[in-house]
């Protein structure tokens, strides 16, 4: 049933991360449409068989290529057929000079783009695009970035696009002298995407990747080059490799985000990464304790406001989960820093307000 767009018997497919999917069809409408589509299905089966047969017989002529195209246009998930397509292309460009090869692969990219517009979340199409670009020594990376931008305007959270972006950036960095400038430009871009939608898991993830790289190596730029004052502050922090200052600044951003939407899981997960061993191991104990204690107090304050607002007077689940996590981090530094009664009390409340994960909370006990 779920092959018919807009109709699914399994309601969990109807929304992702709380976002509604497209309009639903009634069962009778869906059946009607299935009946209409039956001749198409028959045609498809016939085509599928034809293509697989010619793959078996290793036929690499124009006619079989056209059939492959036709079949992939209908169903982009057939990886066997994509591989057949790759075999055909390798066969065709074998012995060609770079320019002729580029021309053929450009045509291929055009076909891939048409498919991506229809199926922006298909692993195999993205895979094929990367394959083509790797094969071609004359690829236009800038053009790929433009394309990514358009895809992100349509769906800013499509993680296929984000990981494709990381691939392109990596390729650009490989041939550039200023790979750190590229990273910082990416940081700028990712920041703007997070500002647009703080529930963007992919953007937060990309931010964490970039921060790691920028702490490794960051460009020296003037304030005018950067433009935005806030971003310039970040750059100075990267230049100085000042982890403590970074955490203080980044946790301000986190605080703004949780106040904007206390129920947004992506932000809470990002905090967990910030207060993980990755950074904590690089700063002094005093600094660690200051940062975590302040953070716990901030979250407690938010939780108080949430309790006040919630009709049933319940705590905010994410606040408690995070406080518990942070107390555990404190406990690792110094056991005396944690009031265990308080800690256990939070776990008890969590078991009550989130009974589905009851055992998980019992497990967290120190």
């Amino acid at each position: 049933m779920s092959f018919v767009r807009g109709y699914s018997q399994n309601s969990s497919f109807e929304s992702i991360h709380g976002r509604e999917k497209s309009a639903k069809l009634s069962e009778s409408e869906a059946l009607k449409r299935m009946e209409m589509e039956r001749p198409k299905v028959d045609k498809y089966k016939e085509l599928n068989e034809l293509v697989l047969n010619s793959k078996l017989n290793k036929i690499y002529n124009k006619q079989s290529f056209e059939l492959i195209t036709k079949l992939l246009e209908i169903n982009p998930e057939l990886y066997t057929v994509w591989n057949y397509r790759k075999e055909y292309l390798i066969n065709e460009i074998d012995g060609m000079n770079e320019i002729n090869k580029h021309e053929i692969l450009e045509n291929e990219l055009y076909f891939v783009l048409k498919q991506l517009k229809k199926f922006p979340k298909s692993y195999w199409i993205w895979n094929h695009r990367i394959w083509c670009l790797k094969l071609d020594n004359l690829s236009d990376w800038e053009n790929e970035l433009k394309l990514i931008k358009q895809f992100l305007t349509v769906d800013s959270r499509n993680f296929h696009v984000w990981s494709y972006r990381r691939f392109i950036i990596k390729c650009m960095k490989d041939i550039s002298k200023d790979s750190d400038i590229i990273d910082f430009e990416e940081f700028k871009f990712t920041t703007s995407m997070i500002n647009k939608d703080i529930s963007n898991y992919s953007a937060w993830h990309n931010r964490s990747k970039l921060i790691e790289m920028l702490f490794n190596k960051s460009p020296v730029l003037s304030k005018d080059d950067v433009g935005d004052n806030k971003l310039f502050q970040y750059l100075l922090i990267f230049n100085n490799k000042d982890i403590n200052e970074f955490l203080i600044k980044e946790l301000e951003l986190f605080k703004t985000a949780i106040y904007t939407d206390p129920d947004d899981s992506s932000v809470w997960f990002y905090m967990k990464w910030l207060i993980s061993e990755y950074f904590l191991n690089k700063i002094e104990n005093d600094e660690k304790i200051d940062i975590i204690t302040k953070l716990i107090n901030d979250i407690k304050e938010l939780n108080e406001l949430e309790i006040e607002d919630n009709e049933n007077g319940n705590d905010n689940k994410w606040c408690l989960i995070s406080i518990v996590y942070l107390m555990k981090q404190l406990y690792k530094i110094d056991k005396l820093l944690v009031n265990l009664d308080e800690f256990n009390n939070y776990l008890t409340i969590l078991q009550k307000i989130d009974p589905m994960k009851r055992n998980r909370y019992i497990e967290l006990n120190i």
Partner: protein
Amino acid sequence: MSDRRPSIVERRPSSALSSRRPSIIPQLEGIEKPNTPNLPENMNVDVLICGTGLINSILAAALSWQGTSVLHIDSNPYYGDDSATLTIEQIKNWFIGSKFNKTGFKNYKNIHLYINDNDFNIVSKDYGIDLSPKILFPRSSLLDLLIKSRVYHYLEFQSLSNFHTFENNNLGKLNANKEDIFTSNEIDLNSKRKLMKFLKFISSPVIELPDNLPKDISIQNFLKKNFKLDDKLINEIIFTLGLINNPKIQLIDALNKIKRYILSFNIYGNFPTLYSKFGGPGEISQGFCRSAAVAGTIYKLNTKLKSYDFENKTAILNDGSNIKINERIISSLNQSINKPENCKFYEISRIIAIVDKSCNEWFQDGESSSIIIFPPNSLNSQNEYPVQCLIMGSETGCCPKGRSIWYLHTIAPTINDIAINDLNSALLKLEENYIRESTFNFNEFNDDDLNYYNNNKPILTESGSMKLSKSLLDFKFKFSNERINYLMKLSFTQLTNIDQLNPENINGYNKEILKTDNNIIIVNMPSSELSYDGIVEEAKKIYKEIVGDDSDFFNVDFEDEEEEIEISNELDAEIKAEVEEIINVDNNQTTQSNQQSEEFEMELES
């Protein structure tokens, strides 16, 4: 026909949109085609419609697609009637007609027109002035109808994102989506939280009010008590986001109005409203008339109803033709031969000003219009009602570069000049703010107040704009040589039969059908509602009265069935992509879609 603006057929299409235009746009009598000279003798029609205002035009199209034969006339030499988009010359003629030699019902009063043609060489046709400007919510019945009827083919739309609220002598920009709330430095953390809570509450599919709510609680108190929002935010939410012009609106109605703004975000892109380029309701009326013409409606401008014999079902027009009416006559009030009994009138006061400033400072990047709201008690005139203001820049296609059109209106009473004082007071504030904003000296600001992008001119950050608003308090005109000059200023009071303060008329239109004593159906006059809400419902109401049922309202198969299903599936995506394209074009980003640019590059190389 002498003075008019180029129509959709004659305009050069904006490149991004050219692809979705039908190859043939139906031509209209009195625009691309000469006006119909003579109607056939002993003409026989089902319905005669007088006046080509928006509701009438939707009706003409709906009825003729349903199979009803329609004759559609207008006493004016242009389309649009009291929602027309006019040139300066047409405004002059409208002024004379409305003020002096108009026969029949006068639906305008207190009209004053000032035109400064000496200092500015005004080219009349460069301007498209809406008599009752409107903006379109992406989630609205009119937009659905534009798509269903395919009339959107004859129109172009642009996004409108900037909604300002005038508070403490400052034009604050509305923070009404998650991004604005998250990034704003002006809202403190706790207000961010409360505001987001309210947005979540209002965007749930069904608004559920708490059980223990006091009876008849006002929207103001509801927001204060249940969401603990401060007065500034409350004003912004009710009057700017909700575009509500009655401060005493009932709670649930107010919430529904606020909701349409929130739900309209991200339907076709990250903006809450659209407007039709080259003119508002006038342009859309024309679009529906083209659709009606395709379905067989006969058009004749410069023609009006002279008399109607209800018993013998014959109508005589002023061109002498004698028409047999099988069903009914529908007319706008100002083109009707008599008015319905017991019809009360209410007032909307408007000022339309053309100024010699671009007003780009008020627009979002890549856009060319904005909304400015003066909430109650924000003006020196102690205004009881809000003043709503729509600014249209040159990219709207309604005025030349470096100029803009300011539309202001209020439903305040005209007794003791209350309304006009409110409007003038708002106009003065617009002037002051604009001059201050466009002439301030960047040296007054430090690094925190400014951002530089790509070495272009500096842009104010929020701390910068707060400083600016403080300086506005002390600002006096005499310190500045800058002046705003008016090319045209038109003020008038428009009458409407819709009581804006009656909760029954929440969408701007009322439920009953007005009829004259000889059974002519009178279409409601334009309301003060700034959006197009209520217009389709009004058309459906009259459609039902004539056809008996509105289930087949625009129920037309334009293509064969299979294609139809695919199109309906893809249409939303298509429009979405197009709107994105438009925005991209405006942002000077890639002007073509990827597909096109790739094709282009491939051509270059071959």
